[in-house]
């Protein structure tokens, strides 16, 4: 039995029955990290000693009969989430030595649930990217094909779950950064409704779009992790006060009688035929299971990318103004220089090219004389995009679609063309603009052996429906049981 490819559900059962201990499980995962990291590079920091101490504590909790479903399960955390006492780089040189004095709320909740934290996952710098090639510490490789990108920005996390170097991960998604890499790595990735999971301690990229969520090997596992991290947080004024339902109980609902919408605009020009075929086969499976598939229209889809790449950089330019060399992070102080010289030197040496590009775009879009034409216009079109979804959800319970127009592309293929790279997010970013929950789950492999995902989008706070559809699909297929030969 490969301990490193267990689902949370399986591992939790083995721990409860005392067939394995958390320390054994954690040791197996640390060995797996050692065996795969050189090729995959999913981690930026590995916290082996702390993990073993947490595993021992978890074993005591299990022995005392005080364990929950996540107690003693080894996980990795995206390096954009603050972890007390463990450096948090955001994939950036500007935070290379930043050691947060507090835990993000969701990290604290996972610790309370008994998480064993193996380390921090690689990512595109400040979560800006679709391939992890923007990490200041080197790209992550896709475990299914080491020449391919894992997707991004949570590419370290999805590659790690696919490679078996953690049992689950938590990533973040601003325009597709959980779902697109989950699709490319053949794992489950869930972006909850905006505000469902606290953003306190999530280093801000675009505050009106950012949301953290689970990356797992099964839909049931995603439900368990979401259960632990969802809920209102007084420290995040944008977290939603809505009650958290029992997500695991929702899994068994099935799809019989559900109406699922297929947006006609999501089969875009330039879509890889294998992606379309795979996703249409998945639709047929859902139909066989008793769902009714109907075509819907999201007429403003074609404007989503332009809206997103104005609003996200605008918010980023404001959020990243905090990196000034004073309170934390890199500080470059030229001799005889003044405060302004420190700002210039620190920011120019600390940020990588994509971050600079987005700060520049955002600063321009918010600057006097251009604000109405760019930010103002984009914010109005954002309303139209949200209305498209609201109207569609009057007819259907959920929307099903591809995740990304192509399977994972080769490393290096798009680094010189930002606009081409941005197109990777064209089918995921509308979810963020409208604040909706969306999930990617494995739907098959391309002929080249690269995974292809199915996206399920629900109305606000309809994670239960999204999970139920995903779980039904997963039970009828075996894509999620396949692993890369690594």
């Amino acid at each position, binding site marked *: 039995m490969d301990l490193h490819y267990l689902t949370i559900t399986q591992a939790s059962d083995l721990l409860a029955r005392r067939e394995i201990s958390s320390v054994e499980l954690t040791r197996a995962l640390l060995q797996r990290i050692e065996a795969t990291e050189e090729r995959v590079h999913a981690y930026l920091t590995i916290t082996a000693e702390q993990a073993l101490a947490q595993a021992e504590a978890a074993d005591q909790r299990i022995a005392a009969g005080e364990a929950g479903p996540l107690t003693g399960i080894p996980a990795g955390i995206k390096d954009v989430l603050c972890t007390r006492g463990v450096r948090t780089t955001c994939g950036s040189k500007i935070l290379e030595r*930043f*050691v947060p*004095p507090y835990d993000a709320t969701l990290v604290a909740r996972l610790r309370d649930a008994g998480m064993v934290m193996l380390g921090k996952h690689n990512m595109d710098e400040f979560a800006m990217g679709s391939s992890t090639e923007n990490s200041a510490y080197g790209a992550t490789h896709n475990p299914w094909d080491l020449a391919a990108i894992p997707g991004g920005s949570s590419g370290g996390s999805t590659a790690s779950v696919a490679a078996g170097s953690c049992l689950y991960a938590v990533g973040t998604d601003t325009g597709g950064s959980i779902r697109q890499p989950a699709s490319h790595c053949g794992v489950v990735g869930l972006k909850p*409704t*905006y*505000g469902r999971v606290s953003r306190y301690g999530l280093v801000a990229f675009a505050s*009106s*779009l950012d949301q953290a969520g689970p990356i797992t090997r099964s839909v049931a596992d995603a439900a368990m992790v979401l259960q632990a991290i969802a809920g209102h947080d007084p420290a995040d*004024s*944008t977290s*939603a006060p809505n009650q958290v339902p029992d997500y695991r109980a929702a899994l068994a609902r099935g799809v019989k009688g559900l109406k699922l919408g297929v947006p006609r605009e999501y089969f875009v020009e330039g879509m890889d035929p294998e992606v379309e075929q795979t996703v249409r086969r998945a639709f047929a499976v859902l139909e066989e299971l008793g769902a009714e598939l109907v075509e819907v229209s999201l007429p*403003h889809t*074609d*404007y989503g*990318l*332009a809206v997103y*790449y*104005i609003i996200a950089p605008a918010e980023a330019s404001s959020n990243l103004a905090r990196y000034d*060399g*004073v*309170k*934390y*992070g890199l*500080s470059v*102080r030229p001799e005889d*220089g*003044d*405060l*302004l*010289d*420190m*700002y*210039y*030197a620190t*920011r*120019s040496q600390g*940020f990588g090219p994509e971050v*600079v*590009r987005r*700060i*520049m*775009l955002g*600063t*321009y879009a918010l*600057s006097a004389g251009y604000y109405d034409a*760019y930010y*103002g*216009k*984009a*914010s*109005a*079109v*954002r*309303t*139209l995009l*949200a209305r498209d979804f609201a109207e569609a959800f009057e007819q259907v319970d959920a929307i099903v679609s591809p995740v990304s127009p192509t399977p994972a592309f080769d490393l290096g293929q798009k680094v010189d063309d*930002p*606009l081409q790279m941005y197109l990777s997010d064209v089918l995921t970013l509308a979810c*963020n603009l409208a*604040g909706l929950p969306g999930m990617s789950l494995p739907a098959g492999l391309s002929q080249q052996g690269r995974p292809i995902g199915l996206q399920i989008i629900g109305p606000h706070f309809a994670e239960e429906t999204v999970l139920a559809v995903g779980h039904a699909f997963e039970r009828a297929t075996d894509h999620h049981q396949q692993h890369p030969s690594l």
Partner: protein
Amino acid sequence: MKISRQEVDRVARLARLKLDPEMAELLTGQMNDILTYMDKLTQLDTSGVPPTNHALELTGAMRPDQARPSLERQQGLANAADTDGQYFKVPRVI
């Protein structure tokens, strides 16, 4: 041209970024491509459409104004490049 090299330099100053000439040239080209793509938004009539700045209709969260424990001073200073033990230190301002 949507944006000139001079404007790129001006925006960089606003953002407190120093661009070397090669980067500034590269960015001028790339920003022109991206901003030209953004032009497609002008095809839509948005008169009378309110802006969305936040995806959920949440109202401002209020709580009683009570003093609560916060970060210890030493923890707050621990990540700074320079302090005098009580305050952050920065290069001269004027």
